């Protein structure tokens, strides 16, 4: 790091689990409902209510545990974290403290530093534990009053804690992006960062390069975009280094990142940190997870992105970069595999998926799940190019027809529209002869040394064949005739 300083970063990520109902009540977890319409008597903490653990949330924690190679605790304990806050209805949060559901594990990810070559890094995970979210305080909406919305109260969260093994904001970014992709991939999170489904707290410290002891760490809370995560860490690292170099000392505290000013500001120091008085929640029995449940969940897990990347390289002889791009999401990867299985040229299948298809999806702002072109048809399209039935230009036009729905079947459209490539040398020669006769000026220009005139003659010939001429053959014949 800069000027002989090393940065140390650990991330705590709150992943909102995509269960239909809350972690301890039957209320819906859907986002965006009118305030307090999705708060049951349990979420409101009315007198006499009791929590019942959502088995779906547990299975999602097990999914993550398997995906990161962590140990899934056969017996974990829910504890109460006690503190007073108006949007914390019970006056305590049910969380896991001493014995979390997932212990250990690791995450491998690619790092793209701003200066230097990309590399791969693996970071160990400390733990992942289940807990409930709090409600929201609405301070702006009401003059001189605070509003409380408890729709979010009781939403299931999985807090994933990394070891402090990241050494730059680029590494933190790589970790966060990969973790985000993973939790979406294994179906436990919708990944919607704007709605707060994936939020990071970063623990940041600096130390002289080569030092073995960690510096004093500062926790930056609630970073809900990758950009802010990187900016906040960069800012905090600069602040700490300047502070120490100016003879100051970093104090252990919690800071908030203000994206408008690109700076962090202190929220509370260690001295004001609440004593949460954790103790096992007597309303809930210890959570027991049997080997049978773990095996059942393992059986339901899709192939994990890392394993799939390796397999795509191995089975389809794809470059690593293609495999990485194609495994950006599970639906994309599944789409690609469906194309690749039916396509003779795997690399062409990858190019089409990452190129034409991705561009069309992007342009129309839809996800791969809603793609109007069936993977089977894209495979036929790829095959018709490889077997010489159509040329690349026609293929692109045909793709546009498939996308718009004007054509459903590649082969039917080729037949109906006569899009088959002209590869008959005699036919191409006849056309070339006609073009040369009709454009003596261009011919003269070419012979006078103007290469541009050649392209214009190719264009004329293509026009005459409505783009169907085999481009290589056309080039050869034209060159030969112009001699």
């Amino acid at each position, binding site marked *: 790091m800069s000027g002989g300083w090393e940065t140390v970063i650990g991330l705590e990520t709150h992943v909102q689990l995509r269960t239909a109902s809350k972690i301890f009540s039957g209320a819906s977890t859907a986002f965006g409902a009118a305030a307090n319409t999705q708060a049951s008597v349990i979420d409101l903490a009315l007198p*006499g209510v009791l929590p019942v653990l959502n088995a779906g949330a547990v299975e999602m924690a097990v999914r993550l545990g398997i995906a990161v190679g962590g140990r899934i605790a056969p017996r974990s304990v829910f504890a109460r974290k006690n503190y007073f806050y108006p949007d914390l209805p019970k006056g305590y949060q049910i969380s896991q403290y001493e014995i979390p559901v997932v212990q250990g594990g690791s995450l491998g990810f690619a790092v793209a530093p701003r200066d230097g070559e990309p590399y791969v890094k693996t970071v160990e995970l400390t733990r992942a534990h289940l807990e409930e979210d709090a409600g929201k305080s609405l301070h702006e909406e009401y003059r001189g009053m*605070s509003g409380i919305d408890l729709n979010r109260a009781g939403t299931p969260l999985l807090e994933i804690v990394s070891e402090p093994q990241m050494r730059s904001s680029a590494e933190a970014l790589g970790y966060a992006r990969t973790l985000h992709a993973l939790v979406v991939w294994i179906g436990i999170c919708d990944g919607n960062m704007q709605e707060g489904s994936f939020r990071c707290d970063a623990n940041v410290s600096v130390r002289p390069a080569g030092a073995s002891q960690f510096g004093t760490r500062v926790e930056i809370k609630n970073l809900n975009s990758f950009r802010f995560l990187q900016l906040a860490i960069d800012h905090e690292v600069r602040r700490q280094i300047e502070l120490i170099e100016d003879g100051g000392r970093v104090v252990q505290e919690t800071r908030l990142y203000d994206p408008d000013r690109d700076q962090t500001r202190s929220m509370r120091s260690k001295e004001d940190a609440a004593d949460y008085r954790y103790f096992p929640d007597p309303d809930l029995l210890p959570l027991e997870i049997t080997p049978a449940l773990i095996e059942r969940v393992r059986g339901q897990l899709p192939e994990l992105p890392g394993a799939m990347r390796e397999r795509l390289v191995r089975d389809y002889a794809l470059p690593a970069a293609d495999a990485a791009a194609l495994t950006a999401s599970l639906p994309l990867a599944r789409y690609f595999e469906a194309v690749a299985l039916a396509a003779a040229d795997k690399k062409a299948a990858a190019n089409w998926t990452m190129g034409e298809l991705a561009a069309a999806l992007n342009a129309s702002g839809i996800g791969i799940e809603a793609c109007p072109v069936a993977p089977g048809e894209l495979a036929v399209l790829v095959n018709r190019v490889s077997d010489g039935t159509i040329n690349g230009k026609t293929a692109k036009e045909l793709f546009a027809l498939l996308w718009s729905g004007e054509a459903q079947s590649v082969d039917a459209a080729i037949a109906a529209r006569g899009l088959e490539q002209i590869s008959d040398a005699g036919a191409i020669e006849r056309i070339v002869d006609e073009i040369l006769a009709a454009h003596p000026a261009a011919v003269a220009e070419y012979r006078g040394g103007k290469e541009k005139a050649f392209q214009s003659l190719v264009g004329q010939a293509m026009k005459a064949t409505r783009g169907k001429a085999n481009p290589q053959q056309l080039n050869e014949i034209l060159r030969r005739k112009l001699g």
Partner: protein
Amino acid sequence: MTNPTTNATTAASEHATLAQLGELLDRREVSAVELATLFLGRIERHRDLNAFLDVRPEVTLAQARAADQRRARGETGALLGVPIAHKDVFVTRQWHTTASSRMLRGYDSPFDAAVVEQFAQAGMVCLGKLNCDEFAMGSSNENSAYGKVLNPWDRAAVPGGSSGGSAAAVAARLAPIATATDTGGSIREPAAFSGVTGTKPTYGRPSRWGMIAFASSLDTAGLLTASARDCAIAFNAMLGFDPRDSTSVDRPREDYTRHLEMDLRGLRIGVPAEFFAAGLEAEVEAAVRAALRELEGLGAVLVDVSLPTAALGIPVYYVVASAEASSNLSRFDGVRYGMRAERYDDLMDMMCKTRAQGFGAEVKRRVLVGTYVLSHGYYDAYFLQASRVRRLIADEFQRAFTQCDLIAGPVTSGVAFGFGEKSADPVTMYLADLYTVPSSLAGIPAMSLPCGFGRLGRPVGLQLMANHFDEARMLAAAHRYQCATDWHLRVPGGF
């Protein structure tokens, strides 16, 4: 009620047991409406006891009419049409639920507690809500924000607590049966002080859904009744698995009356020496010893057992229960329901003032103790250590139950004390739970049944304890004792 036959039946109903009322209803000698009217009249006449906090005759009579209609359609059931009253820590839709706290004055629950729901399904007619110590914290019912409850046997004496209203109501026959809760003795101690039968089942057997939590790992719903048989009949409706309570035990329902005619010959009753040590009032010891001889006479075998760790029950209990209470009561913050302080500066100030004004002294004391024992640096020495000793006490009971089927002893070291006698010194008050707390910590069923009278003519209770899920045998032993004696049939003068 001008019909002379009805009058005679009514007179018979006044002191009838729940079992007898069921029979009268079966034989159509009395209607649910007549019973409800009768008991509402008694409640009104004896308002000075302050046993009830909320009575709504129109709701009660509507429930009674519904029960009569069910009977008219041919439905039967031991509880169908029989009146009941609920301790004010069970939430109810149709009566206020305050837990005897200023914090919840006028609070209406949008749902009924599981226990309330079960008895309503069985057709029981609710007479109203019963006074208790605030949030069930206390041993004398002097901690209610709505005033003390008088002991029907002696108006100068406390009825016991925290279920003082429940015990007084059944003792004075203002209700034939009342629900109650026991965390460290809150059913058994008032049962002993008020001369009625009070039973706490195994922890996890009754649902805690809708029971305002004091100490979740100890809170157990139970009953105050005129007899052990009545309790067995009502337990059949009340005890069963409830998926809304994660600590509810998933076991099939059972018939708690099945052993009532059991022969006591050969039944081994353990007598722990530690329960007869110094500090036990002579009259109480005499009455309890006499009851043990009575049981022996019925064929039971008395066995000496030892529960040396049980003596640590009081400190363990006041650490564990206060810790849980400090957290359970955090929800009363003035934000969503209940009381809110009138004047405050900001949100934190509002919460502080609300809690300062809404809770009584005993509740505050326990919240403070509980907060302390959970605090950083004290957790291991207090809460963790107490949890360990709690396990030792439970293990000790398991060892004792290899030598005996039931354990018997006194419920309290003395008879009901006078108002104000112990309230100045909380520790003396806490020591009143000495004999009831160990079984609460172990989660085993335990009960108190009347076995005589002591100092100043105040009632004495005999405690029976059984192993987990052995309620039926414990109730049978109590029932056999009650068949041979009449302490439980005595009703205080003037009622």
